[in-house]
């Protein structure tokens, strides 16, 4: 199935998990999509293989970053009419707290939706949104 077909199928059935199946890296992270009304949350299940430091133990910063990047793209496919994959132009992450090996959530905020570029803010948290583990923002190219 091509990405465009997967996106259309997800929009038609409102089964947003189909988007994850169309993104091998999101599948690799075992990412889940939870849509409640007007809010989409991405969920990264706790997994031993995402650990960066066994001693603490803590999630790998690269796993957190990859999750947030995926979450922003899935959010844009959900929130906009794009049928081509939004492409990250740049992505910035501030790591705020050590991420424990537990379920991690990402919530997105569409700062600006332009004709060609979307600016998205991503907040990643574990126990409560008020204690984010990381905050990111990126520009995404909407059309090739």
């Amino acid at each position: 199935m091509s990405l465009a077909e997967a996106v259309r199928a997800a929009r038609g059935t409102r089964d947003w998990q189909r988007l994850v199946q169309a993104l091998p890296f999101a599948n690799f992270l075992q990412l889940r999509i939870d849509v409640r009304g007007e809010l989409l949350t991405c969920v990264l299940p706790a997994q031993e293989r995402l650990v960066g430091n066994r001693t603490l133990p803590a999630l790998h910063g690269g796993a957190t970053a990859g999750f947030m990047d995926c979450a922003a793209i899935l959010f844009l496919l959900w929130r906009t009419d794009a049928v081509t994959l939004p492409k990250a132009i740049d992505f910035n992450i501030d790591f705020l707290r050590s991420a424990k090996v537990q379920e991690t959530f990402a919530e997105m905020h569409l700062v600006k939706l332009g004709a060609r570029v979307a600016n998205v803010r991503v907040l990643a948290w574990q126990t409560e949104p008020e204690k984010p583990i990381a905050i990111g923002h990126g520009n995404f190219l909407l059309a090739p």
Partner: protein
Amino acid sequence: MSNEGSTQDRTNDTNLFYSSPYNQALGLRPLNWPKDGCVLCLPYQAHLVGDLDSGAVHAGAISGLIDTTFGQAVYTCIPRVFATLDLRIDHIRRSTAGRDLICAAACYKHTAQLAFVRGSVYHDDPADPIATAVAIFMFTDAVQQVFAAGRSHEPG
């Protein structure tokens, strides 16, 4: 966050490197450790693809390659315990399906509490980057170190 141990022994570094489950999951391989940096390879793998139509590796997988290489670059320069404070990545161009990615990073400055790293990702030609990045790492043993040194080297 990326954290490493505090030994100067390169064999132990390699062990530390392989002891990170996420580095293993990504299949990262060390290529070279220049004196102020690190060069790692992310082999092309179908499950890391972000775009089925082009076969290009997902930006998020590239983030993992960068975070690890940058952390190793810090550790090569100064073997202390640290965590990533921030990471900025510019995705210059799409990677080519089927080709491995290389990340080369240099720790160009470190102070009592911070280490500054820059680097890029490419297939085989550093002059044709797929991504460029900068990051700041914070030493998490800094409080004791600063106390022992009796002064801080922080900028500003």
